[in-house]
């Protein structure tokens, strides 16, 4: 037994132990014991993944009763990378859960499901064949569904969330199953190595590609398969939402990479265009919805759609450019996509956990009722702020490095040695840059809004005003997450090198570490060393701080309850800008896309037609894709279901008629 093999066994055993502990331990120490075991499970996953990423081999074989190949778990380097990411998120989330899970969230079922969810999820990247992949995938789905249901008894919204989630998960699963089925039929085996022998650009490869892309895209919350996200993530307990958004969607990305890097590495250009379009639309749509969202978790959920859209944008650019042999840019795009994936895991986990901390402290996630938490919850505010920087792709965070690299790849993509590689690329790349830029701009607004409204200014409700900082067991994962965001942002070099190793051995990105753990892309002449930038900023800062220190001694800051009050008086917290009002200009600008429903009600004073006593404005932005794409289908299905009842109306004559008709048809068929 080598490191990887024993690591896999340990993970399986830890998962089972956590399930058992969750089911059997009393409530007094259930959360602590199970949470600790789950965190250990995560650590085991990190170690195993690291070993696999380092190139160690090891396999765990599980026999099956059906005469198909046995299940073989053996992570390769890419799998190792994903295992690390997913496990790390799992560990943080479990720690946080110890503190945050209360009531139904800390029930036996929830903790056992947590272990199942995490265990299944972090083993998915170890699968080397179709059946074990699907098996672990479904275990992951099952665990997360149960977790989602934790609060079912107290909130009726869980009901529809659960249905949406399981239906959309199953849709993804069926897409994946069908896609793999096509490949299995074409190659005659279930192992991924066998599947990879499918001839490129044959119809099975094309069909399988589309099916798998849709399947994995669904898990990665891509438009239009994202509809579960804004329902599910707000309903799930915060630490579970963090695990779903921080880790589970990465499994979707892993699947897409499995397809684009391992199984079908040399696709035609239209594959790349398809991924690009899917990713681009998701990115813009996701961030638009996020920017107008008022519920913190909904905002974060849509932001995940955006980030995954960007990951797929990078992946699509990579596939497209590779099909034109623009290898250097293609590699850079691939590394950028993975970098974004890793950094998203860091910042989105922290953000969701931060939202969980806010909910824990205030019981409120509606930004319109938060505010002023920065003073009351400094740890949460600080970590949430850093993670927000990451989500907004601003410097010294990992999100920035990823987006920078993606931009570099895109602007260098359309040309190769001074020649335009293709018309498609020269149209696609500028549009991709535009999408990326618009997304980045809106992300900026979104997270300024999220952080500014929630943590700055004055509390907008009583619950926000009496908030207290969360206990240390919840602070630790927050701090670790924020450290990861900044650490990966300051030292992208080693991470990029690891990613380059992970996507090998066929694809070998030309990535190097330079300076203070900075990163350089030799193939496209780009270099970035955030560490040096920070040093430079520090140098610039010194004189300012000196002036401030001197000034503060002579003229210390004065605190006044309402110093300027915008020129008015009696300024109450409710008169502050809220999240809704913050996004209002944007809603107007993107009126055609968001299609908000506005309801304005004016009450006049007495008989007057001019004096207004009260104006009631209500504006809701619903998910256009859900209302325009899914609702009609669902309504049609419901109508059909109602109509179909008539086929089973209880009349035995009708039933006999069915049989008779079948008999006649068979007789006719027989005599043909």
């Amino acid at each position, binding site marked *: 037994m080598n490191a990887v093999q024993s690591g896999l066994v340990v993970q399986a055993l830890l998962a089972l132990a956590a399930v058992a502990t969750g089911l059997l331990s009393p409530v007094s120490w259930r959360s602590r014991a199970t949470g600790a075991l789950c965190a250990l499970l995560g650590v085991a996953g990190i170690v195993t993944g690291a070993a696999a990423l380092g190139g160690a081999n090891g396999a765990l074989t599980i026999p099956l009763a059906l005469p198909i190949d046995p299940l073989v778990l053996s992570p390769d380097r890419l799998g190792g990378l994903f295992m690390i990411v997913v496990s790390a998120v799992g560990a943080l989330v479990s720690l946080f859960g110890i503190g945050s899970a209360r009531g139904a969230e800390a029930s036996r079922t929830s903790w056992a499901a947590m272990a199942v969810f995490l265990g299944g999820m972090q083993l998915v990247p170890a699968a080397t064949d179709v059946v074990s992949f699907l098996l672990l995938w479904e275990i992951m789905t099952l665990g997360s569904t149960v977790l989602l249901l934790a609060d079912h008894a107290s909130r009726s919204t869980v009901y529809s969330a659960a249905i949406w989630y399981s239906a959309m998960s199953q849709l993804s699963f069926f897409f994946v199953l069908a896609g793999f089925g096509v490949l299995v039929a074409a190659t005659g085996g279930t192992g991924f190595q066998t599947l990879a022998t499918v001839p490129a650009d044959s119809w099975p490869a094309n069909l399988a590609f589309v099916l798998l892309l849709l399947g994995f895209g669904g898990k990665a919350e891509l438009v239009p398969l994202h509809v579960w996200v804004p329902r599910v993530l707000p309903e799930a307990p915060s630490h579970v939402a963090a695990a779903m958004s921080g880790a589970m969607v990465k499994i979707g990305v892993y699947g897409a990479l499995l397809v684009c890097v391992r199984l079908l590495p040399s696709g035609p250009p239209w594959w790349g265009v398809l991924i690009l379009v899917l990713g681009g639309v998701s990115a813009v749509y996701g961030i638009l919805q996020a920017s107008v969202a008022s519920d913190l978790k909904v905002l974060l959920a849509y932001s995940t759609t955006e980030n995954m859209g960007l990951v797929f944008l990078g992946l699509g650019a990579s596939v497209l450019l590779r099909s034109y042999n623009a290898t250097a840019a293609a590699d850079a795009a691939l590394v950028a996509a993975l970098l974004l994936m890793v950094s998203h895991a860091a910042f989105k986990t922290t953000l969701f956990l931060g939202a969980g901390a806010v909910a824990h402290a205030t019981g409120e996630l509606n930004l319109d009722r938060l505010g002023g938490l920065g003073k009351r919850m400094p740890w949460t505010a600080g970590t949430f702020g850093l993670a927000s920087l990451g989500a907004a792709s601003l410097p010294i965070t990992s999100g920035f490095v990823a987006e920078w690299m993606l931009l570099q790849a895109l*602007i260098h993509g359309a040309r190769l040695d001074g020649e335009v590689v293709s018309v498609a690329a020269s149209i696609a790349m500028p549009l991709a840059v535009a999408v990326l830029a618009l997304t980045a701009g809106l992300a900026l607004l979104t997270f300024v809004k999220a952080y500014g409204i929630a943590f*700055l200014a004055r509390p907008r409700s009583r619950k926000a005003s009496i908030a207290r900082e969360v206990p240390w067991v919840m602070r630790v994962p927050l701090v670790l997450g924020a450290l990861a965001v900044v650490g990966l942002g300051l030292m992208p070099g080693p991470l990029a090198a690891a990613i380059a190793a992970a996507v090998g051995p066929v694809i070998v990105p030309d990535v190097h570490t330079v300076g203070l753990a900075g990163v350089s892309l030799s193939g496209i002449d780009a270099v970035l*060393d955030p560490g040096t930038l920070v040093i430079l900023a520090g140098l610039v800062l010194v004189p300012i701080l000196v002036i401030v220190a001197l000034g503060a001694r002579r003229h210390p800051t004065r605190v006044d309850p309402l110093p300027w009050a915008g020129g008015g008086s009696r300024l109450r917290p409710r008169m502050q800008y809220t999240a809704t009002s913050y996004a209002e200009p944007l809603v107007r600008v993107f009126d055609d896309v968001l299609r908000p429903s506005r309801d304005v009600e004016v009450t006049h004073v007495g008989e007057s037609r001019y004096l207004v006593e009260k104006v009631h404005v209500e504006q809701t932005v619903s998910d256009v894709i859900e209302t325009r794409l899914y609702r009609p289908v669902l309504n049609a299905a419901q109508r059909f279901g109602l109509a179909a009842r008539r086929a089973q109306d209880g009349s035995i004559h009708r039933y006999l008629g069915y049989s008779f008709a079948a008999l006649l048809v068979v007789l006719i068929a027989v005599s043909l």
Partner: protein
Amino acid sequence: MRVGTGAAAHAVELTWAGIGAPILMAVLQLALFVFLAPLLIGVIRQVRARLEGRAGAGIWQPWRDVRKLLAKEPVHAADSSWMLSVGPIVLLVSSLLLCVLLPLVGTLALPLIPSDLFVIVSVMLIGVVALALVGLDGGTAFGGMGSSRHMTVAALVEPTLLLSIYALSIPAGSSTLSLIVQTRLQTPAVIISPVSLLAMVALAIAIMAETSRLPIDNPSTHLELTMLHEAMVLESSGRDLAWLELGSWLKLAALLGLLGNLIVPWGVLTDFTVPGLLLGAVAVAAKVLALGTALSVGEVFLAKARLFSVPELLAGSFALALLAVTASYLVA
């Protein structure tokens, strides 16, 4: 056309040319622009005053304002957080970094942090975010309004900004500004190519929006319906206000300097010599002041656009930038 540097070029060369000269140039740039930025605002205001038939406060008035504000105590609202004092400093640092990183006096690149336009834009955006958060932290309706509008504009500007950079980067084969400027210096034909012109117009509009100038924002208004930038700084006072003002001015100066060097790259230091350094400093100062004057003159004739017609303007500039990029691939 493609100026290759290769991986080896990114290695730190512990030589005078590799480290010393760029650092010296950067320090000079920093000092020059800290001095120049308030002056630029003074010039802009003075020119405008004269054109409008007023006497004006003189070109040194901004300097005097800063000195005065630095000597005053800041007043914070009781519910505000540290953001009110940290935000202005962050804005200032981001603007100062712009002055260090942009090829203003010369194109000597600092080791490991070349003047990559994407990095520069991000550094600038940090300042934008800091300002927006300061606006929110005041806890008033005006601050939130300004912040909201400011961020909306910033979000919509970003595509134009990045695409125009993209367009400019194509002839140089790199998004590093010093290389772009060098390319334009070596082959001036690039400057007046239609692609470049489109990109420059788009970039100019983007910079106007980023620096809160007309027609996107009126820098001298205090009418609630028209304020963007001013609404955000309404609650700041004393030192905080000084940093905010200085930071905004520095940003304007640095971006005008960049614009100047892109339009008229001559005078820029490419190989280190002391006279060249001085020439570069004088050249960039002249370009900035000239552009500032032109800006001021232009603003006299412009009215502020309605907030909700701003997106149309930005969409137009975005179209120009996109046209520039695709044209440079498909026409060139």
